[in-house]
């Protein structure tokens, strides 16, 4: 265990764990848009930046992304230094200019006092903030179905060649974790469409509700060693079944005791 100082308070941390983890454990609010526990940090949004210094640095301080900066003994962290706050509002201002219609961005910007952008608004701006959470999650899952294409201001998230990605299994991990709910999908008539790819859904043998795509079920059963039959029932029916089983067991117990 090591000790670091955050906003004047000495706290314990594990050597090498990321500053953001410690900051959040201390219930200090630092905004992030590209951070997700499930995937490697990337340092893209730059909102989590904090001011750091050490006594031996002679008053010199540095600005680092807390999501990527490993805690080290004696570090002094200021999560809301003047420059840091300025930087955050400036970044949020840039976001607001690019995605003026995104409710998530508008709300976060407002929290930092930016109600209207001072920059030129991008006409036809979409709500993808290029945080890369979706692509990193997809990579982490092992599918690599979507990626960042292009560079600079024209960068976007897309499947290879902008065609229905063969590698996509329709798990929806990207869409469900997108901070701005940008990724569209459609679940209708027992099917699912995402990234222009159509999927067939497995219907629950009990209640008929659809839960998971056939491809995802097959993938899980093959690669994670789960019996394919497990996916033939939806979560709810699994639980009902479990409750029924548990009930029967306790009945037997009672009978046995009496």
């Amino acid at each position, binding site marked *: 265990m090591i000790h670091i100082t955050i906003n004047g308070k000495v706290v314990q941390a594990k050597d090498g764990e990321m500053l953001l983890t410690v900051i959040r454990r201390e219930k200090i609010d630092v905004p992030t848009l590209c951070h997700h526990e499930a995937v490697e940090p990337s340092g893209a949004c730059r909102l989590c930046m904090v001011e750091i210094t050490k006594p031996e640095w002679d008053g010199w301080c540095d*600005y680092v992304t807390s999501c*990527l900066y490993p805690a080290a003994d004696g570090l002094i962290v200021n999560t809301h230094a003047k420059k840091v706050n300025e930087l955050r509002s400036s*970044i949020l201002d840039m976001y607001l200019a690019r995605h003026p219609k995104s409710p998530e961005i508008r709300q976060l910007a407002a929290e930092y006092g930016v109600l209207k952008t001072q920059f030129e608004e991008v006409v036809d701006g979409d709500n993808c903030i290029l945080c890369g959470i979706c692509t990193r999650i997809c990579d982490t899952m092992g599918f690599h179905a979507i990626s*960042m294409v292009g560079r*600079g201001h024209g*960068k976007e998230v897309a499947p290879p060649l902008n065609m229905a990605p063969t590698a996509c299994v329709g798990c929806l991990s990207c869409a469900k974790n997108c901070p701005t709910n940008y990724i569209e999908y459609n679940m209708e008539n027992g099917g699912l469409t995402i990234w222009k790819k159509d999927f067939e859904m497995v219907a629950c043998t009990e209640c008929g509700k659809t839960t998971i795509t056939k491809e995802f079920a097959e993938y899980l059963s093959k690669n994670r060693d789960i019996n394919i039959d497990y996916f033939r029932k939806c979560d709810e029916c699994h639980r009902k079944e479990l409750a029924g089983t548990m009930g029967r067991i306790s009945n037997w117990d009672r009978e046995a005791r009496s």
Partner: protein
Amino acid sequence: MNIKNVKDLNKIKKETLAISKKHPKKVLVCCGTGCIANGATKIVESVRDGLAKRKLKDVSIEILKETGCHGFCELGPLVIIEPQEIFYTKVKPKHVDDILDKSFLENEIIEPLLFTNPVDGSKITKYNDISFFKHQQRIALRNLGKISAHDMKEYIGVDGYQALAKVLFKMTPDEVIEEVIKSGLRGRGGGGFSAGKKWKICKNIQADKHYVICNGDEGDPGAFMDRSIMEGDPHGVLEGMMIAAYAIGAKEGYIYVRDEYPLAVTHLEKAILDCERSGLLGENILGTDFSFTIKIARGAGAFVCGESSALMKSVAGEVGEPRAKYVRSVVKGLYDEPTVLNNVETLVNIPTIIRKGADWYSSIGTKKSTGTKVFSLVGKVRNTGLIEVPMGITLREIIYDIGGGILEDRPFKAVQTGGPSGGCIPESMLDLPVDFDSLTEVGSMMGSGGMIVMDDKTCIVDVAKYFLEFLVEESCGKCTPCREGLYQLHKLLEKICAGKGEMSDIEKMERLSENVMIGSLCGLGKSGPNPLMSTLKHFKDEYIEHIKDKKCRAGVCPELITYEILDNCTGCMACIPACGYDAITGKKKEVHIIAQDKCTKCGACYAVCNFDSILVS
């Protein structure tokens, strides 16, 4: 060729020198990319045929040398006759017979092919009498233009691989590192970090593997020093890498070259193959325990791929996007192993430093920036090209002595150094010594050595806009401040150039610049606002003029200028068809008129008027 030990190496050196002595007369044809583009390949063929016709075929290999770039590509194809050092420019195949008969076989000089001094119009015969070359001191470019680039024997003939032999037999890795530290050599790729110290940190990291990478990405538009070195002296680069590998204990090395440099790739491939075949690369080099291999990694040509973390990802086959690194690549680099990344020019200096010693090297240049630096001098100067000069030389010496002064003797306005994220330096600082720290101090930087000279016809706001546009396009787009911030800075500059700027925009740009610099992930974003900040610092008046007076004193920003026809118009009617927008009317021998509502300020009329009758204001 077999080079199993130092004896073999010295034997080849001796043989090469003997042949060279036997044939002191030589025809050197520059075969760098620039001269080839101007037709050097045909010259080589003609010389070869010509020598054969003159029954000199058996020795033609020793006589004809296909050399690397002299840095004077503008005047190519270049041909040099040795030993007289006669320097011919813009040579065409039809000149070759004459050159062989008169200058090669006899001692005659062909006047029209000589270099014309742009300052006074005089003809200069000898290579080293030309001021462009005279004021240079060549260490990194030592072999360029002197030896056949693709001939390993020639490299060995000019002390090639002697430094390798020296370190392998006479120095420990630590001694090599200390020597390089003592030489004061700082990285030529932009950062200016001590090469020796970088090696030391890397060597001291315990790991299974260490890597050496040569950075030949060279993404700066207009810069071509690394390309020329890789093309013209590939063995020099390999030897530098071998010495670095020995020092840090690396067994594998990579050279990262962009795809747009096919000739560099070909020459490096040939050099690597020759080394592998002869035993200078592979297992037990020169009979020692040292083993090393080099592979070429080809880049897709994005500017940001020159950045160390992006480059290493690209070498490893991933997307070349920078990654945030609070752990440096000397500690955790390629495949997460300790890696030394050095620029081409940094590495090519190493063999000479080892051969001649750290004290010799550090006696050149300034105390904190030792040695020489290669610059690519372009823009509004009379002589443009690649130059190598001792550090500490003044900007004035470079621009006026080597560059021959400003074209048409126009007033000097600024010099932009450091590549796209460098800065502009005004006239008042022409006597600034050129070294890492002085350039940084005035808000510019050394960068990779770009140097663009600008005259009074250059609009400084337009220059800032141009570089920002480049950076916006080259930003990888990963992090927000760089992707969105540079974009907004460029938008603001566009607005000012269009005459719609407001005084508050200046402060807005200053604040945004600061946040982009603090907030960005990699060097591209961190230094991206530089062109803007440095011009704002030294040329604020011009910004204010654009904003308040709606004037562009250089006559560049279309929205801020007008084209008018003066009374001295002869009515020659030349400008009427030149205007693509039918804006000019007028009768023969009468003063013409430009309809301002139709004029797009393209400048076509200005270009055709022979009577200086068109006023741009």
